[in-house]
């Protein structure tokens, strides 16, 4: 396994959250803060710190609508689809060296899953009268592009995939308490589970324990 892509570096390169950490989110009126961030993430204001500071309880009471969360989720899924597709293309072009059968099967399976996840969230948006999301999460894309460009083998790609799966699964976990529609909660939960399971198999493939956390965290969530 090469160290071309270092997972710790990747972790630290994931853009910092909106001026409040996980603990602050949990303890300090996090629902309202996250709701406000989601509103800003969907186009109002990029000033994360000020967004958190300006949050009031109105945001939580009025609530971020499910469509805003669906937009964030769809942006992550576009990024996952493009990354896995890139990995598949690279593997087929023999740019990643020898690809073990299990890794090949994983990439193909995960790609199809994320395509379905994207379709689901775009379906939510469409039914809400919103435009479908076709562009990847703009905040994460540069980090992913850099890591992908540096990937030399399947281990590098697996580390990148693990980062994406962690971000996605944690984003869904963080979104669940904010979603209002029971159908959306269910969809987010079903995808959270599958992304966590993707992560477990990636951890195993990378030589790590597949269930490393006692409680799933949200510190890498996309909002």
């Amino acid at each position, binding site marked *: 396994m090469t160290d071309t892509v270092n997972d710790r570096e990747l972790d630290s390169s994931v853009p910092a959250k909106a001026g409040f950490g*996980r*603990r602050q989110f*949990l*303890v300090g009126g996090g*629902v309202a803060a996250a709701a406000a961030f989601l509103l800003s993430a969907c186009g109002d204001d990029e000033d994360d710190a000020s967004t958190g500071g300006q949050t009031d309880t109105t945001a939580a009471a009025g609530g971020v609508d499910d469509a805003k969360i669906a937009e964030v989720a769809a942006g992550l899924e576009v990024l996952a689809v493009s990354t896995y597709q890139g990995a598949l293309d690279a593997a087929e072009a023999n740019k990643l060296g*020898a690809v*073990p*059968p*299990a*890794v*090949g*099967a*994983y*990439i*193909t*399976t995960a790609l*199809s*899953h994320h395509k*379905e*996840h994207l379709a*689901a969230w775009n379906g939510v948006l469409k039914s809400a009268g919103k435009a479908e999301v076709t562009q990847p999460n703009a905040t994460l894309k540069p980090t992913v592009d850099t890591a992908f460009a540096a990937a030399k083998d399947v281990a590098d790609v697996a580390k990148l995939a693990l980062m994406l799966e962690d971000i996605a*699964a944690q984003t869904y*976990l963080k979104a*669940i*308490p904010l979603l209002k529609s*029971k159908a959306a*909660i*269910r*969809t987010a*939960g*079903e*995808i*959270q*589970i*599958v992304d*966590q*399971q*993707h*992560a*477990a*198999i990636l951890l*195993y*493939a*990378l*030589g*790590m*324990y*597949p*269930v*490393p*956390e*006692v*409680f*799933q*965290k*949200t510190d890498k969530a996309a909002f």
Partner: protein
Amino acid sequence: MSIDERRLAELMEESNDLHVDAMRGIHESIPMLTEIREERRKDGVDTDEIERFNEGRRKALKTMGVGAGGIAARGALYGSLGSIFTGLLASPAHADKNLDIQILQTASSLERLAINTYNAAVSMNLGGIGDVTGTAGMVIKKFIETTVMQHDEHRKGFVAQTTALGGKPQDVPNRKFQAVVDKAVPTLKGPLDVVDLAASLETVAGDTYLVNLSLFEDTKSKEIMASVMGVETQHLATLRAVKALLEAGAPELIKIPIGADLAKLPAVAGSVAFPNAFHQIMDPELIAQPDTGDVK
């Protein structure tokens, strides 16, 4: 072939550190929850909550196939244990308890059942699980030890939340599924049966928690349960992969770290852990209703 015990120990240590950090987060939120408790105590019985669950369950039964698809799928899900997990008729939640508390108590009861069952698998050598030799045996033993620790922390988290909402802590195994386990244990003939039983219990927990996410009124309870759900379903993913390797006659590939043997893993190892793009509840009878584990 010997397991890299030092590396495995390091991984366990890292896992423990993560756990301490996570528990700290949960404990920090408890004071806030006690304020909620006082408000909730005044609420009394909420018949709407009861109807929420019962309606949700009716829909689950209707849409997830107690009909032909659900029944047909059930046999294939849990190997030889399939018939034991069938025929569990659900009863509706009772209108005499706060539903959120009932859900949390039942979650505690599922965690207690999982802890007891995993421990019994080792202490009683169920299905000869303790006789699995070599790398696979050591990894399975470590997996059980770690999983027991994780389930116990989940139990503690649910108990703390139950108490924060004004409920009584539950530390008795789930009534409905204890009966299932009792019936299954004498039928365990080999390690695969034990893996099936463990996978079934993880499925019960994961599916129950997924359904509960739409039933909770309390946001913190929802956060905790979703967080635990993400871990239980990783247990399930691991067990599915272990099962696939045992069935493929490749127990030597059950090793951590896998290292260069990654190349030897059969293709199925890359997909068996997640059979669908969306996690599916294959059998609504494997959901633990809130009154199956509440404190009477």
